[in-house]
């Protein structure tokens, strides 16, 4: 019994220590202001790696989710004779929730895991150590551009996801199932508020982008530099990011849309 209590205590201490280390790590990454001449090309390269290369999965997923929303929405709304509200339903669902959340989950799986594996492998092959010994801080040279790229790319990807999703919903609802195009767009325009819906969804995606990128780079930098350690860190990135996104989504939704 005492062993179990002691084990629980050790686990608690390890979790708190890990939070402390990741906080110190984040401070170390953000503290350095890079020179624009060297920092900008590194940022652009990482924006391509984590942003542009994630476009395919985001666009395809957004399209299918929008189409499914169109189908499901039409089936349910037509029972009440209100299928013309399908545009409003698809837009609000995507802009408020599915756009930021699903994009963040895809981002964690596609870009986050790649970031962790890349940094972990650089650690395992002593590339980070050699950089340190050359007088170059790997936190600023390697980690910071990846963190900023993830932070900047996620909101843009989430917006693209929502736009493509709405278009997919329109394809199914209007082109296939015959909902009147004017009411599809008109209802959407009248019910979607820029500040309450679009801006709040954007803020969510900014928060998710920051958290996912932070988890990914920290797990890579802190991993045990072996093949098993990198594998474990990559898994942790996806699991922790997904849980963090879903948990934060509830908190942010309660703050933004809750009417207490």
């Amino acid at each position: 019994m005492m062993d179990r209590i002691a084990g629980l205590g050790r686990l608690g201490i390890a979790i708190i220590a890990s939070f402390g280390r990741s906080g110190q790590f984040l401070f170390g990454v953000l503290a350095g202001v890079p020179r624009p001449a060297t920092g900008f090309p590194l940022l652009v390269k990482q924006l391509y790696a984590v942003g542009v290369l994630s476009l395919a999965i985001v666009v395809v997923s957004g399209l299918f989710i929008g189409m499914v929303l169109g189908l499901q929405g039409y089936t349910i709304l037509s029972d009440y004779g209100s299928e013309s509200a399908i545009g409003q339903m698809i837009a609000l669902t995507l802009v408020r929730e599915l756009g930021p959340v699903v994009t963040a989950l895809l981002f964690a799986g596609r870009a986050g895991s790649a970031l962790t594996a890349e940094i972990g492998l650089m650690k395992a092959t002593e590339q980070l150590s050699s950089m340190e010994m050359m007088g170059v801080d790997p936190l600023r040279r390697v980690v910071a551009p990846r963190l900023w790229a993830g932070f900047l790319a996620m909101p843009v990807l989430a917006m693209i996801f929502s736009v493509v999703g709405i278009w997919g919903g329109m394809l199914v609802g209007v082109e296939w199932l015959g909902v009147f195009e004017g009411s599809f767009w008109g209802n959407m325009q009248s019910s979607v508020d820029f500040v309450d819906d679009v801006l709040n969804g954007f803020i969510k995606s900014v928060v998710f982008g920051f958290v996912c990128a932070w988890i990914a780079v920290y797990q890579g930098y802190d991993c045990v530099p072996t093949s098993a350690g990198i594998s474990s860190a990559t898994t942790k990135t996806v699991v922790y990011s997904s849980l963090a996104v879903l948990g934060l989504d509830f908190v942010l939704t309660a703050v933004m849309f809750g009417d207490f």
Partner: protein
Amino acid sequence: MESSAYITLRDVVFSRSGRRIFDGISLDIPKGKVTAIMGPSGTGKTTLLRLIGGQLRPDSGQVSVAGHDVPRLKRKALYQLREKMGMLFQSGALFTDLSVYENVAFPLRVHTSLPEDMIRDIVLMKLEAVGLRGARELMPSELSGGMTRRVALARSIALDPELIMYDEPFAGQDPIAMGVLVKLIRDLNSSMGLTSVLVSHDVPESLSICHYACIIADGKVIGEGTPEELRAHPSERVQQFLEGQPDGPVPFHYPSGDAAADFGVGGRSS
């Protein structure tokens, strides 16, 4: 030797994961010479290099490089000091997304504002020094183990450092590659006036090029001196290491219980 020491370690204690790696080690590494640090695997030779480079901090004691108290340096000063150091890692640690040329140019691009044509000249000179000028367009994945270390060597001397540290440069090398590395370490030291620290357990190669050597075991220096002095060292442990004897003060058998009991002769094994 004290007055010409480039690196000084005094009573350095260092523990990791509850295990004491160094237990009050003291060492002087002379300026402008090749110093070999030898010892059995797992004795902390690489850790010693990381202490010198400031990547690790000792629990207590002093680590001084070129007059700087390394563990107490602020981040900026430490990074500035590292610009005077080169380190050849056991794996080479080349950046896998950069070509050979770009790997060697990396420290020049980061730390200098030299024009591109001058960077090109320096990179080609460094690659020429290690015999790989013709391999400049290759990627690290296309290089053999020996070539990887030679490129890493060219990169580590790109900024003309005062100190260069070699971490197991001969490990896993074929005889030709080993001969090339021995020649390079000796030639670079004499031509550039470097202070070289060579960590290795390859005794013949290390003793053939070093001016001074020390053997560490159990967290302490167990023998030091010139190669000739070491070969004549009275310590049995030093002689066992130098001659590669399988049994001696370091026993062949890992400490174990009664063999008769283990084999079930005259009693039961647990």
